[in-house]
């Protein structure tokens, strides 16, 4: 390198390091990978701590903690029912409108049930419910917890001998897991009924009994088990990511918006990755 420098270069100038564009790009990628690994490590540790607290302290201070779980179910479940009803009908209309009508035209309406089960029960139902809860409740969780943290309320809890994971995180994790499971079941039922209503309006030659038989015939026992596992996992993942971002690291008030955006992005990515794992499980079964 030094041989290419002009003769009048001083020693101090020669020591100055100017990375090339490719090197800077590689450094940037390296930095992203290190941050990603740090986040995965932090999230993993936080999830394990939360699991430990949930298993060991579920019945401790139950008169304070259990009402908090109920209020989280009310917030992330019951209050979202109108929105889920609307989305369920919309989903049913879209899928039936696009697929069942088409299948009938080619005389393949016997596959309507299979399509509905594959698309709504296995894929869209859980994902739509999870994303709705993330948008309506997950973001609120990050904002309230990071504000609590920034205002020092978490330290105030610790000063009173109250475990913040037990008081703030555990009710949210359980509340979101139960809510997403319940909302998904409700959304699937609404979508299946709504879808058939649309087909009925469109004069698709599909009798209710046939449609119901197709659905029943397409469902396997694994669908119920995996649906429950998937929706609970979505709830746990969204709650852990949002609580971790809001609570686990010291934040200032001005960081709250950035932390919220980061938590939403991470939650979406985590849900998609989890969904991919379940697709593999479905394929293996």
């Amino acid at each position: 390198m030094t041989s290419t420098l002009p003769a009048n270069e001083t020693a101090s100038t020669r020591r100055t390091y100017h990375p090339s564009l490719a090197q800077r790009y590689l450094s940037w990628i390296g930095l992203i990978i290190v941050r990603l690994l740090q986040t995965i490590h932090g999230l993993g540790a936080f999830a394990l701590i939360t699991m430990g607290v949930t298993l060991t302290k579920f019945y401790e201070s139950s008169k304070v903690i259990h009402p908090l779980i109920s209020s989280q179910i009310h917030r992330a479940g019951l209050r979202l029912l109108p929105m889920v009803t609307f989305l369920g009908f919309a989903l049913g209309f879209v899928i039936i409108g696009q697929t069942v009508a088409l299948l009938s035209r080619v005389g393949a309406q016997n596959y309507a049930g299979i399509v509905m089960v594959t698309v709504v029960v296995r894929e869209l139902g859980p994902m739509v419910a999870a994303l709705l809860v993330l948008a309506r409740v997950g973001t609120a969780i990050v904002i309230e917890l990071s504000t609590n943290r920034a205002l020092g309320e978490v330290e105030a809890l610790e000063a009173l001998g109250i475990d913040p994971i037990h008081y703030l995180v555990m009710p949210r994790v359980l509340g979101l897991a139960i809510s997403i499971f319940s909302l998904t079941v409700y959304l699937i039922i609404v979508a299946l009924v709504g879808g058939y209503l649309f087909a009925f309006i469109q004069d698709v030659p599909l009798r209710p009994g046939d449609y119901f038989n197709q659905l029943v015939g397409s469902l396997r026992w694994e669908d119920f088990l995996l649906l429950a596992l998937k929706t609970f996992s979505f709830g746990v993942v969204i709650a852990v990511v949002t609580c971790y971002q809001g609570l686990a690291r010291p934040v200032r008030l001005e960081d709250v918006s950035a932390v919220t955006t980061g938590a939403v992005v991470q939650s979406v990515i985590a849900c998609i990755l989890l969904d991919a794992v379940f697709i593999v499980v479905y394929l293996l079964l």
Partner: protein
Amino acid sequence: MSGPEAVQELIRLQDVTVTGSELQHNMVRVQQVNWSIRRGDYWVVTGAPGSGKSDLLSTAAGLQKPGKGTHLIFGKPIQQLNEEELIRERMKIGYVFQGGGRLFNQLSVQENIGLPICYHQDCPLSEAQEKIHTVLNLVEITSLARRRPSEITRNLHPRISLARALALQPEVLFIDNPLLGTDPNETAWWLKFLEKASTTPLIEGRKLTLVIAADDLRPWRSQGKQFAVIHEENWVEIGDARGLGGKSLELLNRFSGVNYNQA
């Protein structure tokens, strides 16, 4: 240390280095703190704003880990206590935070005070009402019980935080800058209450051991029993009120800009 002396000594810091929070990059705030808090003490710790008083109080109360040194809480080294043991010991320590006391804004005053009681005794709020009203009476804010902190003047927030700290019937009470931003009436109330708390049994038939952090020493000179200053990261113990003269007075004048000779 053994016998009655060990019992009398509630908290001890030996060669402790106090560091700031993670947001402050754990920088050193106070060095070489050798401090013994004994039953019945009434400490007033002063220092310029930003000198590390809050970090020192948090560390002494077991809320922050010391950077270096030995820290004993009720005779037990804090580093050797597990989480549960530490919480059990820390519950004997009340803490009132600076600037509003860090109340939970989504809860009413009585829920703020009842939360630690209900959490530790596993009872609904209705069963904690008697204790809540006892402390509300003690700090004279009974009429505010059902209001949320956001509906109450900030002047009274430290008093609500005091009630919340007293709800767990602590043996030692740390209060960080209680007179910060208070009006003259509120200042008079705090001084009167703390004097009473240090001289008459208020809770469970015992007097409170008090540790106060203050920007200005003047209001406390007549009632504090032990005084200390944080000056340029150093812990300087002045002793009792008689010690507030000579070199200590020079030190106080220098760090605060207040002429304590005339004050």
